[in-house]
């Protein structure tokens, strides 16, 4: 019978939650790396026992971990993330030039085919790659240096590269997103990049239709339709059907289109999920009611999902990397909150239950579907 392994990164360590295919009874293992901020951990699709971890601390910087046995044991790997050449400057919050400074790895994206190959999205924004299982890291510097970099500026969480989408069949095509620069795509394995932000409109920047400067919060795709991208922007839920060349808004009847997460059902490429958040200054659900909203039409038409979720006095947030789906026949949806809850719906969002309720603030959630 299939199993699921949920990898949870929190402000104070990592946790591994496991269950059988029914997803009703759970084992909780952790904290791993107690006391450290775990922005992200993710397993290799090519070898599920290979798990990469970003472990960081305001005191002691960035360290990296790797497991080759599904999280039973860990090995410290390389943590030298150096910008290639003169790092230059980007815009600071007040518009003045500010030097590029490495702070942490926000997101890890293992290769779909090679367990030793993994990408890392960094703050200050840059994309790194390791071809040796995390021992050494090399910047794909053409992204940072392609021309608009001096105009990028940090969002409230820092100037982070937080989304890395690998094309399922074309290894040279990668889509990434940066707060607050926008989305970018390479079609040649990282040699060249182009901004893919046409159609995004951001009222909070001087030119709402600018080429860069948009605060993209997260992007998701379904592997069967890799040219269709779904985006939760600072405000607005967007979709593109041409790999980001043009975006259209699909917020539809959402009660607010501010939010952080967005994800796609494992078997229904037009079924997508978001968690609307009140506003950019009030990072909690509307009216204290935690609601996932589902669209079965790829956007525009949305329905609230509430069964099993707190519908009063709930003022948590759901951060951008804290939603995931499993690949079981009845697709499971998962998300974690800044209040330390991790919720699962084993039936595509109709019913929810808390797997755990009192973890440190959840930064990321990933799911592995295991044989």
């Amino acid at each position, binding site marked *: 019978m299939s199993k699921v392994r949920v990898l949870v990164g929190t402000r104070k360590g990592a946790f591994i939650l496991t269950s059988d295919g029914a997803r009703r009874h759970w084992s909780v293992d952790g904290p791993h790396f107690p006391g450290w901020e775990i922005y992200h951990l993710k397993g290799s699709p090519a070898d599920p026992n290979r798990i990469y971890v970003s472990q960081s601390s305001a*005191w*002691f910087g960035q360290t990296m971990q790797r497991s080759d046995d599904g999280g039973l044991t860990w090995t*410290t790997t390389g943590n030298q993330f150096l910008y290639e050449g003169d790092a230059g400057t980007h815009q600071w919050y007040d518009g003045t030039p500010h030097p590029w400074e490495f702070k942490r790895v926000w997101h890890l994206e293992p290769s779909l085919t090679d367990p030793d190959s993994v990408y890392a999205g960094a703050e200050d924004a840059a994309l790194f790659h390791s071809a040796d299982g995390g021992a050494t890291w090399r910047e794909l510097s053409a992204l940072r240096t392609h021309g608009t970099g001096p105009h990028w500026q940090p969002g409230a969480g820092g100037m982070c590269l937080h989304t890395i989408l690998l094309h399922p069949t074309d290894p040279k095509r990668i889509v990434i997103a940066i707060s607050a620069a926008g989305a970018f795509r390479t079609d040649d394995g990282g040699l060249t990049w182009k901004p893919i932000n046409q159609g995004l409109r951001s009222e909070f920047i001087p030119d709402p239709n600018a080429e860069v400067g948009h605060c993209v919060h997260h992007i998701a795709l379904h592997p069967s339709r890799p040219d269709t991208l779904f985006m939760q922007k600072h405000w607005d839920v967007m979709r593109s059907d041409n790999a980001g060349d043009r975006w259209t808004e699909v917020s539809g009847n959402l009660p607010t289109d501010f939010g952080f997460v967005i994800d796609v059902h494992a078997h229904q490429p037009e079924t997508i999920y978001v968690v609307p958040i009140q506003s950019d200054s009030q990072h909690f659900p509307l009216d204290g009611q935690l609601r996932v909203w589902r669209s079965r039409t790829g956007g525009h038409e949305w329905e609230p999902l509430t069964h099993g979720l707190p519908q009063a006095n709930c003022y948590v947030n759901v951060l951008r990397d804290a939603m995931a789906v499993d690949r079981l026949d009845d697709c499971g949806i998962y998300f974690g909150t800044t209040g330390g809850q991790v919720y699962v719906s084993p039936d595509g969002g109709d019913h929810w239950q808390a797997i755990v309720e009192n973890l440190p603030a959840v930064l990321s959630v990933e799911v592995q579907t295991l044989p």
Partner: protein
Amino acid sequence: MPTLIQVELPAVLRLHAGIASHYPIPLVVEAPVTLAAVIRALESAHPALCNTLRDPATGRRRALVRFFAGGADISHQPLDAPIPEAITQGREPLLILGAIAGG
């Protein structure tokens, strides 16, 4: 000539490096014994500590890492300056602390 000193690490780094002992750890440091040499020796003996005390891009001490010797704060002395004899003669350990900064 190599010198044997004692070093106390923050608990979170001991755990990270898999150092079970709660006592100061012995460390052989190549001469001249400086903070830079201590960091190199620590990273060599415990690779998990690489880049945790200094920034790999600048080589500088991380802002929230502090060094104390004989009750004195030596965090701000150059990393290549000699450290006090009380440390190099083994009379007391070099204290490495994380700054008290909440969290």
